[in-house]
């Protein structure tokens, strides 16, 4: 029995460790002794996710790692794969669900299929080898897991990864597209959320353009892309008269007012007919829509000013030490209403907006009243202090006189 267990252990040792040990040694051992470009892959591969799952140099490059003589011919050696062949090379494993499930059954296996539908894939088929292939986005020898913050495809690295080619004027000169997308994106509200607030749910290039099947969304589909994260605004827009008009005029929905890559934080100035308003780009001053836009903006401004006024009262009362937490809690409701009103502007329905504003105005009136009574209370406290101090002062003076009077009686 003991013998059979020892035999099993030795067998397992050879099966599990010896092959990987030998494989790793052959290529990496020699390349590590070389310099620069020949050494770098061997070093980078130590961090590579493929190495972690037991793959080696031969998995992509072929060859025999046990072969000592480097000049000897080995038919299985493929050398450096050509750019045009890279999607197929990676796909030979990544599109094989049977093979991939050994490592991660949840990993998708349609990347190559999607790639060939992408703008990059389409151009590669025509022989344009400048377009992105797998290694341009994922790296070559030091490929990290996508969840690793240093991975090229980790959310906050994606704008730079895409921008590596798309922001390069020289590289992109043969293509008739802008080279400012990454730069524009970095000024957007989405980039602020991702890069400043470290909110990984904020969209990056691939969330709108797709990743492996990368292509710009069609005019009609932009709204569908945005509503993945902004369903409420999109729903309101779809029910509004703008939807039909935009479709007819082939104007992209959200992008028409908010832009595409440089989506700045939305402001109330986008509403109405003043400077920065987007409504006036389509609506004439004589039109009803123009008047509605003016009314919406005016009512919203009025609501905000009332809210600010109530907030100021609470702040002043708070500074004077009056407890106003309940009123402040109510003010939060007004803030929520403001957010709802801003969202409702996507419906372009004056009735709906007015109804919501009325709801919020009632809340603000209560808060303002609470603020007034808190300020009144602060004034009352100060007056009370003056009165009390006056009487204490009088009593102290009286005491002082009494003390002087008594002290005169004490024999020195």
């Amino acid at each position, binding site marked *: 029995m003991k013998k059979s267990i020892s035999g099993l252990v030795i067998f397992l040792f050879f099966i599990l460790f010896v092959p990987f040990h030998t494989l790793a040694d052959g290529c990496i051992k020699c390349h590590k002794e070389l310099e620069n470009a020949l050494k770098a892959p061997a070093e980078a591969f130590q961090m590579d996710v493929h190495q972690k799952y037991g793959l080696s140099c031969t998995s992509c490059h072929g060859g025999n790692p046990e072969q000592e003589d480097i000049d000897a011919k080995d038919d299985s050696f493929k050398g450096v794969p050509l750019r045009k062949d890279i999607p197929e090379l990676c796909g030979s494993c990544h599109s094989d669900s049977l093979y991939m499930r050994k490592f991660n059954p949840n990993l998708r296996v349609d990347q190559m299929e999607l790639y060939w539908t992408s703008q990059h894939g389409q151009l590669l088929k025509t022989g344009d080898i400048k377009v992105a292939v797998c290694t341009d986005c994922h790296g070559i020898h030091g490929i990290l897991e996508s969840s690793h913050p240093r991975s090229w495809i980790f959310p906050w690295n994606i704008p730079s990864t895409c921008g590596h080619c798309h922001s390069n004027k020289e590289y992109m000169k043969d293509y008739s597209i802008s080279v400012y997308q990454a730069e524009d994106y970095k000024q957007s509200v989405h980039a602020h959320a991702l890069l400043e607030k470290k909110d990984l749910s904020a969209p990056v290039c691939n969330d709108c353009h797709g990743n492996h099947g990368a292509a710009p969304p069609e005019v009609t589909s932009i709204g569908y892309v945005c509503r993945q994260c902004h369903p409420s605004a999109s729903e309101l827009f779809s029910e509004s008269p703008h939807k039909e008009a935009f479709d007819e005029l082939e104007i992209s929905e959200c992008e028409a007012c908010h832009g595409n890559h440089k989506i700045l934080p939305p402001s109330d100035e986008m509403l109405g007919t003043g400077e920065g308003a987007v409504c006036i780009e389509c609506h004439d001053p004589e039109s009803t829509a123009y008047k509605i836009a003016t009314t919406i903006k005016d009512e919203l401004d009025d609501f905000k000013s009332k809210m600010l006024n109530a907030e100021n009262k609470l702040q002043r009362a708070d500074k004077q030490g009056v407890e106003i937490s309940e009123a402040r809690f109510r003010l939060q409701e007004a803030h929520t209403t403001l957010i709802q009103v801003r969202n409702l502007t996507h419906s372009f329905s004056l009735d709906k907006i007015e109804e919501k504003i009325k709801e919020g105005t009632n809340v603000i009136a209560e808060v303002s009243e609470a603020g007034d009574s808190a300020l009144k209370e602060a004034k009352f406290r100060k007056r009370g202090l003056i009165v009390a101090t006056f009487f*204490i002062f009088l009593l102290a003076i009286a005491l002082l006189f*009494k003390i002087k009077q*008594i002290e005169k009686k*004490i024999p020195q």
Partner: protein
Amino acid sequence: MKNLFQKLFAYFDSRLMLSTIGELAKKKTIPEHKHSFWYYFGGICLFLFIIQVITGILLLLYYKPTMDSAYESIQFIMSQVKFGWLIRSVHSWTANILIGAIFIHMFSAFFMKAYRPPRDLTWITGFFLLLLFMFFGFSGYLLPWNELSFFATRVGTDIAGTLPLIGKALKSFILGGPDVSGATITRFFWLHIAILPFFTLLFLGLHILLVQILGMSKPIGFPKAKVKEVPFFPNFILKDALGWMLILTLVGILCVFFPWELGKKADIFATTPLGIKPEWYFTFMFTTLKLVPAHFLFIEGELLAIFGFLIGGLIWLLVPYLDRKAAMEQKSPGFSLLGLIVLLYIIIMTALTYFHPNL
């Protein structure tokens, strides 16, 4: 009317010996000299304690000592109850001024060597009163159940937990469990309104009785013949009352312009916020614990500091018996220097807590 008053007085006099007490009060005198000013701090402490009792009883009408409603009940007191803000602010401000006044009273007694026999017991009862009021402060601090008090209590009891052998059991006993919880607030509440007041009244009664029996101590080196004696009643008590009025005005100004804040409700799952520190009168110990090295020879630094404070406290308590010179009515500059070092240490460490919070 006068007749009725005389009748009432006669009724109570025959039962309570009011005339005898009056006669005693008339005979009681206070020495008057260049350091007499410090005598008034005893009266100020008593006055502040009375305010504490009155405002504390009023707060009890609305305060609810549970984890779910403690904060809300204070919020209710401060926003809905008529003059609730004033009662709560007066309670909190006077609690802090009281501790400050006790420290002044204690150090003035120390530097005047008022602890020397036969007033050694007055010193000892006073020392225990200081401890009791510090416990009052510690237990009362948690009662509003706000973020600062919650974490300060946690930090404070963690320190107690580091004591060898008894540390864990002591911490668990104080908190009513392994951490600050609903059980802690109940314990602290009963400690604050029942146990501590009982012992305080006991020691305070004894302290005042001793002061009445033994009278005020004169500083060493003041010849008896040259020190003027003034009647306690009404001369001294009227001056005392003048001091109380000044304190009352100060408390009023503080309450109106700087009402005691409630802060955010404690969240037991939140991480300890930065810069958390105990009430100011504990900060000299808190900063010491932060400054001591992790290890000193083979002993843990924190433990060494705790033992240092315990031994220091014991020496401070027994100073009437250690200062032999003062006991023989001789000047003892060594003990004056010791007092000065302790005072400077407390001031410097307290100042460091506030001016260099990231030490």
